[in-house]
């Protein structure tokens, strides 16, 4: 079975970022260096360093949104655990969804280093005050969606996240290195699962194509609005949180997917997709950004369902969390006595 063409080079970039991080730690500037000097020297800002309020707030927003996406992202794929068509696929999917919970946990921990509490972050998700990736507001309608999400959604996430391994905030950069390694493993599993379907019975092939048809444009929209309309981008680039523009990353993703789709034997649903010799890139049709904005604002197919599910789990678990807290309090008193 083929590997995911192009994925090796992304993983190579993660390894390089990890090496750069270790190297940067070895040549740390003296403790008094200003925020600007640290950024200019491409060093890492650490939790106890001084930083502009807007840098702190922007990172909290971004890391929290990323963590929330991992948590909400458990739902669309979790939807197929009970019906996975072989025990091997069931184990792979269960492990993947568990990894997402784990990613959420260490991203929340990274956000907490910026002075925000877990409870505040939970509330911000449950009340819709903070967003999560809009991609998870689309439904998983067939088993092939699990493969398509692995290939396209995890693929887009990796393209987005690999540059974050070099982000200027140390705890986020370190979390992203770990997340990217696991995501790339997930992407390979998704791709291979889709490959089996695309080589399978006529029904399985149709299922695979239908999933690709539904997930292609929402995946392109994951890179955010076009550069001209992107509100947070310029400052974020200057602070070296973000290193490439939305459109640059989107193009990189399209260029990766085209040869992968050929190997899979599925058709990307874009009649205008073609190689542009002059640009050295594929030309492609942009996703519907008005649809993206509708989904971001809460009117996608599953927004209400996803948030209601999370709220219900939170409410149903309240008595358990209270019990754990009461038990811990009683026992600490016993120890003191």
């Amino acid at each position, binding site marked *: 079975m083929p590997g995911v063409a192009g994925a090796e080079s992304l993983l190579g970039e993660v390894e390089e970022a990890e090496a750069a991080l270790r190297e940067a730690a070895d040549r740390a500037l003296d403790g008094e260096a200003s925020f600007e000097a640290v950024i200019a020297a491409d060093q890492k800002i650490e939790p106890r360093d001084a930083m502009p309020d807007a840098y702190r707030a922007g990172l909290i927003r971004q890391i929290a949104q990323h963590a929330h996406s991992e948590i909400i992202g458990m739902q669309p794929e979790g939807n197929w655990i009970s019906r996975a068509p072989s025990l091997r696929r069931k184990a792979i999917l269960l492990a993947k969804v568990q990894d997402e919970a784990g990613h959420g946990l260490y991203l929340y921990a990274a956000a907490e280093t910026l002075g925000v509490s877990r409870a505040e972050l939970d509330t911000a998700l449950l009340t819709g005050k903070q967003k999560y990736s809009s991609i998870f507001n689309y439904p998983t309608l067939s088993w092939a969606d699990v493969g398509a999400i692995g290939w396209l959604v995890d693929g887009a996430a990796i393209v987005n996240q690999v540059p974050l391994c070099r982000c200027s905030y140390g705890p986020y950069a370190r979390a992203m290195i770990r997340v990217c390694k696991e995501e790339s493993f997930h992407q390979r599993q998704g791709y291979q699962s889709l490959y089996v379907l695309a080589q399978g019975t006529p*029904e*399985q092939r149709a299922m695979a194509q239908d999933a690709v048809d539904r997930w292609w444009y929402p995946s392109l929209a994951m890179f955010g609005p076009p550069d001209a309309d992107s509100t947070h981008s310029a400052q974020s680039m200057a602070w070296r949180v973000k290193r490439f523009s939305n459109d640059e990353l989107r193009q990189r993703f399209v260029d990766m997917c085209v040869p992968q789709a050929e190997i899979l034997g599925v058709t990307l649903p874009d009649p205008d997709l073609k190689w542009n010799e002059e640009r050295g890139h594929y030309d492609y049709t942009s996703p519907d950004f008005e649809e993206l904005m509708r989904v971001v604002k809460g009117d996608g197919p599953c927004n209400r369902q996803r948030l209601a599910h999370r709220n219900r789990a939170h409410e149903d678990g309240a008595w358990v969390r209270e*019990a754990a807290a009461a038990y811990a309090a009683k026992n600490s008193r016993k120890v003191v006595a």
Partner: protein
Amino acid sequence: MSEVATEVELLGLGDDALIAAQRLAEWVSRAPTLEEDVALANIALDQLGAARMLLAAVGDEDELAYRRDDHQFRNCLLAELPLGPGRGDLDFGWTMSWLLMLSAAQLLRYTDLAGGSDEQAAAIGAKAVKESTYHLDHARQWMLRLGGGTEESQRRVQQGLDGLWPYGHELTEGIRDRWLAIVEPVLAEAGLKRPDDRWRPGGGRDGRHTEHLSYLLAEMQSLHRAHPGAQW
């Protein structure tokens, strides 16, 4: 269990683990905390892993999991019960009572398997013993917290224990005393009452199940059965 595990015994243990994994996976994205979501998924994965090894020792794992009807399954009734008072319910107090009962029994069965003379079965048992030890500890910790937490948590966990306890008889056939020696001290420490032993439902090992199993299988097998002969 005798010195050499029979196929029927391996199948029974494999079915227990498979059906338990299917039940536990219902908790994914619904647990009281994110940490507990990870822990429950982890236990479900261990159960699934053990099930796959045990079923593969008897036949083809997917044939056994997806092509048998409910009356051909040999799991004990406890494994298939909903993890709450009724169909579709998920209650954490019931779930931890269930896990305590199940993992204590699995620990004993796997220990016996590991000590037997069948090499393949012994290897499966040895790996599963370590996992069951962790599952049992996880359940025990929660029984203490829920039993010693709030009035509500004590009421709910006792309710779960009362609902599930009768099914412990079939679960522990042949290992009852050893099982009680593990479970009773946990109940005592958690301040929970040991329910009475009057009603003793059984029949799972002979393929006579509760109403719940066929729903569980209908969901689990639906996709596989819709595509006969397909590879996944």
